[in-house]
């Protein structure tokens, strides 16, 4: 049995994510070097793309989609405030204002606590990426007299990167900072990066859903209109493994 046979045999297990942790790490390392396995894994994932729908759907709680959208957009839901305010008004009419205040404070504290719990979970997730990072890439960025940097923590288990961009001034008018994945088959557009010299931008990014292995990343300045699937603007940073 050749060494490569093990990878061939375990492609389904890798797609199912039933490999043990160390095995999974070994397989990921192999994928970076093996075009055949990368291609076959991508093909298997495509063939089984709808397998997750073998589980029956669970209807979300009423209002959950809107609440999720609000959370993602970082915009509080109207109802989140309307309900306590409406409740407070009704209770005021019943002349039990003090009771209302107590409830409102409790609701507010519970809400704050829930928000902090979610924040903590997010930070723990971020920390796990940093702790498990297999490689760390860094590059210096100079833009309009500002010196900053790009730092990437590559986490191989969940296939995510934690990316920090710091020291960038606001993008020139009509332009955005664009983050790209560099793959063996070309550049793949990722997220836009906010420019703020005082506040670093932190991003957790999954690997691009392309078959080609990711070799690195780049940051460019791109126009807001007439965007291209390939970078055209000036390259600010460029890192490869």
């Amino acid at each position: 049995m050749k060494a490569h046979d093990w990878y061939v045999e375990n492609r389904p297990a890798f797609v199912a994510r039933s490999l043990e942790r160390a095995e999974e790490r070994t397989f990921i390392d192999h994928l970076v070097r093996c075009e055949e396995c990368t291609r076959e894994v991508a093909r298997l994932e495509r063939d089984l793309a709808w397998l997750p729908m073998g589980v029956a759907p669970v209807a979300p709680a009423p209002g959950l989609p809107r609440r999720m959208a609000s959370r993602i957009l970082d915009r509080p839901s109207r109802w989140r405030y309307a309900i306590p305010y409406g409740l407070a008004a009704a209770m005021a009419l019943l002349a039990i204002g003090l009771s209302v205040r107590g409830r409102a404070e409790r609701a507010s504290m519970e809400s704050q606590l829930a928000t902090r719990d979610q924040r903590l979970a997010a930070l723990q997730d971020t920390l796990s990426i940093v702790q498990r990072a297999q490689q760390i890439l860094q590059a210096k960025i100079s833009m309009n007299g500002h010196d900053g940097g790009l730092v990437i923590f590559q986490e191989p288990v969940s296939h995510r990167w934690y990316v920090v961009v710091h020291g960038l001034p606001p993008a020139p008018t009509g332009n955005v900072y664009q983050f790209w994945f560099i793959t063996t088959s070309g550049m793949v557009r990722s997220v836009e990066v906010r420019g703020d010299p005082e506040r670093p931008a932190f991003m957790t990014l999954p690997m691009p859903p392309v078959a080609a292995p990711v070799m690195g990343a780049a940051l460019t300045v791109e126009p807001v209109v007439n965007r291209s699937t390939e970078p055209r603007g000036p390259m600010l940073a460029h890192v490869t493994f």
Partner: protein
Amino acid sequence: MPGHPPSPEPRGGPPSEGHRSGSGLALRGEASLRRRLLARDEQALVELIELASPWMLGLVQSILSDSDEAEEVVLEAFTAAWNAVGSLGDEHETLLPWLFRIARNRAIDRLRRHKRTRLKLARAEAMGALETTRVAPPEVNEAAQPGWHVHQSVHAALAGLPPEQGETVQLAYFHGLTHSEIAQRLGIPMGTVKTRLRLAFDKLRVALAPIKDWVP
């Protein structure tokens, strides 16, 4: 989560207007939805969540056996997708499978990160969640549920597997167990687990071929 494949009836009210489309999903033209998401159309995000969240919740709950955690993971997955939709390839990848993969990976990461596997197994076993008795598809009128016909196709493909292979797929894919955990649970060698999974996937590739290129 009873039976194999897990098929509880959807909870809650009827799907929103955006979901009604007769035979398929109402979001006609995935390219259109993608363009709107890329243009940061917030309504498109809401539509995507309404469309995909029932399936994602079902999948993630199956893995985590916890509805609250499932909601958190699904929210994380949508957040990641909203931030990275620009990186979604347009040739071979469609939105829903991409979202499913993100959600499933995150659910499994969470399951393993917190070293909860043993606890979950015990809990799930106590609740009968890992009961592997095969059951018939539920006799409910789910025609209005977006993607229901895809679910039925996948359900039929899973039901067509030999029992021991279906059981292995269920434990690995829908409950997030590793080879060693499956081997321990079923009392079989790890090599047998791998073989069953490989044979099952070969059969599923054939059985799911007619819907492989389906686009909502």
